[in-house]
């Protein structure tokens, strides 16, 4: 499929903070919990089947977000835990790190969630996540053959994403 490229994806890709093959996997969800994308580079050990894995990941993020908003020391009003939030309202968490991996998270106000699981010593991936969001806009949203809300099957997006991930992580 032809892509009328020539426009620079803005912002330009951030400088890599680590070298070597650090990227493990990426997930993208929309606001209804549909897993738009799942890709892995260094095959991780997975014991759950794909469906369960996606639900688990989505549920984890949803709960973490709720929890972080309720625990926010700087915010004035505290609803009860579990009260549904407007996406983007309150604070949002960026990442968590364990001794074996680091999970970075970004959510847009339109509910698109991007999750990157990488090597634990990776630096802050906020700019990378924004760049991936830009890639999503350019290659997926603008693709007339893509139905919003369905899993992403755009070859060009996958290739560009792989290329970018190999470059930064």
């Amino acid at each position, binding site marked *: 499929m032809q892509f009328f490229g*020539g*426009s620079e994806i*803005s912002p330009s890709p951030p400088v890599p903070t680590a070298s070597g093959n650090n990227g493990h996997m990426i997930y993208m969800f929309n*606001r*209804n*919990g549909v897993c738009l994308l799942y890709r892995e580079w260094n095959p991780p050990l997975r014991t759950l089947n794909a469906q369960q894995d996606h*639900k688990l990941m*989505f*549920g984890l993020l*949803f709960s973490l977000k709720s929890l972080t908003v309720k625990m926010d020391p700087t915010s004035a009003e505290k609803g009860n835990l579990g*009260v*549904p*939030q*407007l*996406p*983007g*309202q309150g604070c949002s968490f960026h990442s968590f790190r364990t001794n074996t991996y680091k999970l970075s998270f970004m959510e*847009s*106000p*339109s*509910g*698109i969630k991007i999750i990157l699981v990488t090597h634990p010593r990776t630096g*802050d991936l*906020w700019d990378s996540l*924004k760049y991936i*969001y*830009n890639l*999503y*806009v350019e290659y997926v*949203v*603008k693709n007339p053959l893509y139905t*919003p809300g369905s899993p992403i099957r755009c070859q060009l997006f996958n290739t560009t994403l792989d290329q970018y991930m190999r470059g930064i992580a």
Partner: protein
Amino acid sequence: MAPVAPRSGDAIFANIERVNAELFTLTYGAIVRQLLTDLEEVEEVNKQLEQMGYNIGIRLIDEFLAKSNVSRCVDFRETADVIAKVGFKMFLGVTASVSNWDAEGTCCSIILEDNPLVDFVELPDTCQGLYYCNILSGVIRGALEMVSMKTEVTWIRDVLRGDDVFELQVKLLKQVPEEYPYKDDE
């Protein structure tokens, strides 16, 4: 790390890929013309334009959020301001203004003085009920729905019908909070 400040409409408009204005106007005119031929009923065409706008809006919102770096708007006033100052500027190259707020802050008017869609356009007598720019109302409704706001967008004043400016009324019906989408069956 300090959050990146939202970019102004002008800055983004300068960086974004642009298309020839006349091409845009004439293409849109051709679309409306074709819809009139196919559907014949002016009301049907209005509805179809709004639906097309809705489909555009649900995708446009992601591009808008990605390129403009705006964070979540605190209230509807800010939303309307952002649409008028950044959104319209970024996509159509014109700045709109916001006025006529009602008492609760849920209903406002967005005023467009010039509108690239209607250059060279005149409405004939047979199409007097047509909202030529109805695609814009669909775009706003679609985009706001993707950020959890259910709105109703209607035209109050229309230059093609004899008024002096374009006035869109945007009314917030409700905010839809995010719910856990999976049922608790595990």
